[in-house]
């Protein structure tokens, strides 16, 4: 794995972490909770080397 690809995986993990954090902190809006989880799915699939 090249350095740039590795950095992209790090960025992906960071954004996935942010989304999880936002999901955990969201208190009222169910729409936002769903949105955070939906955006999270492709990032997790990429981190797991699935797609």
């Amino acid at each position, binding site marked *: 794995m090249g350095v740039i690809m590795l950095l992209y995986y790090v960025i992906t993990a960071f954004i996935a972490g942010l989304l999880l954090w936002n999901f955990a902190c969201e208190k009222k809006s169910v729409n936002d909770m769903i949105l955070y989880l939906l955006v999270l*799915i492709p990032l*997790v699939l990429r981190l797991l080397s699935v*797609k």
Partner: protein
Amino acid sequence: MTRERWIKSILAVLAVLLMLAGGLPLARHRHAQVPVVAGPGVTNVIKLSEFLPALRGTMADTNVYVLEGQEPGGKVLVMANTHANEPAGLLAALIMIENAVVEKGTLYMIPEFNASAGRNTKPGDGYPLYFDIPTEWGHKRFRMGNRDASPLEQWPDPDVYIHYPDRQSLSFNDVRNTNRTWPGRPDGPRMEQVTFAAMELMRKNKVNIAIDMHGAETMFPVTNCIVAPIKSSKIATLVSMTVKAMEGFDNHVEPSPQNFRGLSHREIGDFSDTLPFLLEAPIPFLDQPTGPKTTQLLLDGKDAFLLSLSKKKKLFVPYDENGWPMEKRVGQHCSVTLEILKQYSKKNPETAVRVRGVPKYADLVKNGVGHYFHDPSKAEKKSVFYE
């Protein structure tokens, strides 16, 4: 538990279920193996990474089946699944691996040239993940791949792919297209490494002929043809005329454009002594104005929209109610490949290549593709390889 926590728990469980429902079939597809029974002609199976160690252990590494004849002669490289969504080439290559016997010369067969693309999918276009070919011993299952390698092997794509070494600007995703990354370089992006390794195979083994088997849309002018640069055009023309006269199917010759870089039929000829040929068989499945992209459409090539367009003369191949079935496409690849070897051998007796056991167009149309595949459960374990 508070109401908020209940909602979050339910949503999290739903998200995990959604991830599993979407991800598991894709993960299974990426790791699915297709057994191949090496036929009596296979003398060795090596890895492409032998020609570039950087590929070793990656999903881009792939099997190279060597079929060496008793008598020394010319050397031929046959590649399929350069575009893994054009599977007629893959089936033709596997038929050759399972049945061909080389009497003179050597064949190098790479059935999954873009091995990563063969494990990539195109869910956005509704591609099926697999297709089955009926055989006398059951169904043989193949992965349906994508045109480009998976980003899991090579990420990110650039905004524009600058071809090496010509510096021509190509589409961003062509950086993962192994028919745009020729001749490649050892320290370039992964797909440039794949094409570089194949160039090394050809240069080190002094390969005389390279054949790259593809499929093209019926609405695309470069279909049902042999694409050849000037140095291969004489043989290509003789092949085209012979298959028309002797076997009854059209396969015209298209010149390889000098100013369009990165293609196998261009760069192999320019960067080695090898004569390149790219074979295109029509594949209605890839045309845009069709019905759903089903395995049935992939196998029989029958589509009502294409039929209607054919009547309006919008297609570049003859098309009727019979569609363009897989056995015709695979048969064309087999016959054209055999004819290239024959015509080359006539002109170059010192490096001739003689092969027997490979079915021709008429045989495949009569018996079907599955007739030529052997049952891996009944074969000796040492002769079963996985793609």
